[in-house]
């Protein structure tokens, strides 16, 4: 039976978290909402404009392209990082001293400030002086990410895979290590192939942790700004201008707050919607979240 006890004292315990998070979340959100429905021509005179900015942003070609690039980017990195992270976690030894060494080394990329990651890859992939760039060109591959959009995309994705797959490995490994040995013994006795072991024992047991990995990776990749802006600045042209880079250009560049705020709200709602879909799909079969 559910061992939790009905206790409204719970609210007291949750209050400090509520205040801290609400302070940082709700007030800024309200300011953005406030801007998104007003027009201003400087010296903070504001005129109520209703949903004008929202219609304008939703209709704008530029927003559709940026959103398209963002969805493509997020889809690609999820399609690579989740399976790769799980595969690496599966390949890691289950017990023994090597495990903690592997985890420490793998966690290093997660500990580097995002702009350093961008700067590092920026130089690393440069055709003449970068280790990666030069080697590729030596091997005859004409690779210059500062000029060809396709090369820029490859570099951007390689950087993100390099930067974040370790988080998926850590989470997947955590899920794997909670599987009791008896399951593996039963599988051996039933003569299950390693694929069957993965499909029917490891995957179901990891589904819970993978939900977290997918949600975390989805949210962070959809919001990504620092690394791409340092690496390619959205270029060449606007080949790699993802949603948040475009937003910052719109907001800080031309300093028209209204559209930027409206775009931010739409941006936030898209994430909320997609996260809710992921969340219910992946926890669906288990009933309550």
């Amino acid at each position, binding site marked *: 039976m559910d061992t939790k006890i*009905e*206790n409204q004292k*719970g*609210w007291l*315990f*949750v209050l*400090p*978290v509520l205040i*801290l*998070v609400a*302070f*940082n*979340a709700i*007030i*800024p959100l309200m*300011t*953005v909402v406030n801007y998104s429905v007003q027009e201003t021509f400087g010296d903070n005179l504001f005129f109520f404009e209703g949903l004008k900015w929202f219609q304008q942003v939703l209709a704008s070609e530029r927003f559709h392209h940026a959103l398209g690039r963002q969805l493509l980017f997020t889809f690609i990195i999820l399609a690579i990082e989740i399976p*790769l992270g799980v*595969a*690496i976690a599966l*390949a*890691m*030894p289950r017990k023994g001293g090597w495990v903690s060494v592997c*985890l*420490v*080394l*793998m*966690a*290093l990329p*997660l*500990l*580097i*400030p*995002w*702009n*350093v990651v961008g*700067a590092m890859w920026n*130089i*690393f992939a440069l055709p003449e002086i970068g*280790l990666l760039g*030069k080697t590729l060109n030596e091997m005859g591959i004409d690779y210059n990410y500062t000029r060809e959009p396709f090369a820029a995309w490859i570099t951007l994705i390689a950087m993100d895979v*390099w930067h974040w*797959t370790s988080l998926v490995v850590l989470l997947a490994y*955590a*899920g794997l*290590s909670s599987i009791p040995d008896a399951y593996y013994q039963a599988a051996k006795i039933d003569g299950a192939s390693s694929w069957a072991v993965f499909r029917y024992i490891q995957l179901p047991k990891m589904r819970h942790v993978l939900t977290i990995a997918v949600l*975390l990776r989805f*949210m*962070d990749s*959809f*919001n990504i*700004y620092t690394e791409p802006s*340092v690496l390619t600045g959205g270029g060449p042209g606007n080949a790699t201008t993802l949603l*948040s880079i475009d*937003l910052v250009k719109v907001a800080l560049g031309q300093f028209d707050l209204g559209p930027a705020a409206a775009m*931010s709200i739409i941006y936030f709602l898209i994430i909320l919607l997609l*996260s809710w879909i992921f*969340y219910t799909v992946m*926890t669906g079969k288990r009933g309550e*979240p």
Partner: protein
Amino acid sequence: MRRFGWLVPTLYILFLLLPIYWLVSMSFKTTNEILGGLTLWPQDFTLENYRKIFTDPTWYNGYINSIIYVTINTVLSVTVALPAAYAFSRYRFIGDKHLFFWLLTNRMAPAAVFALPFFQLYSAIGLFDTHIAVALAHCLFNVPLAVWILEGFMSGVPKELDETAYVDGYGFWRFFGKIFIPTIVAGIGVTAFFCFMFSWVELLLAKTLTSVEAKPIAATMTRTASTSGYELGLLAAAGTLTLIPGAVVIYFVRNYIAKGFALGRV
């Protein structure tokens, strides 16, 4: 698959270490050598970049500021998350499920979106350019994560332990401090690691909310990169130094992470 199994993680770790090696090796090269062409190993090895960082206050203050606000944020997030995680793990109260999902959604707020409003908010309450500001701002995404991880650990401790303590006469807070927290030290370690990590690497909010007094190293570095672009060696050295605090923290919690942690309810 088992015999070649170890090949996959080893190859992957090599792939991870390559760019880091490149960064570290550049930090010992002069800028001319870097721009001059590809050299696998620093030809004219120099410590000039590091000497510059350790002598110039605008550089080393960056590190100090970063460490200050990241530590404040980690301590604050864990302290605030502990009772909340306990409530989610032990009690059913009105709207607890929805609250948990709402906390989750705050990770979704794109930092780029909220840079400007944060600036206005923290200036309004007079906290602009202080360590507290950045520490508080980072709670937006660190506190929900802390609650998440701690709740997973706490659900592993049987409810009967609490009851035994109450029966022994412990009041709630004395039980919480003396008995309950020591049993989830592993959870606190893992949570602290993740909070430290996500706060240390964040740039946007840290840059927006500071100018001089609490300017983090990450901000100092962007200024160098964008203005001249020539001081690559210096940038590489600064980048290498940002690796160290993270490596130290993970060194301490590596066994807890290796043992795995059951991320609780999602």
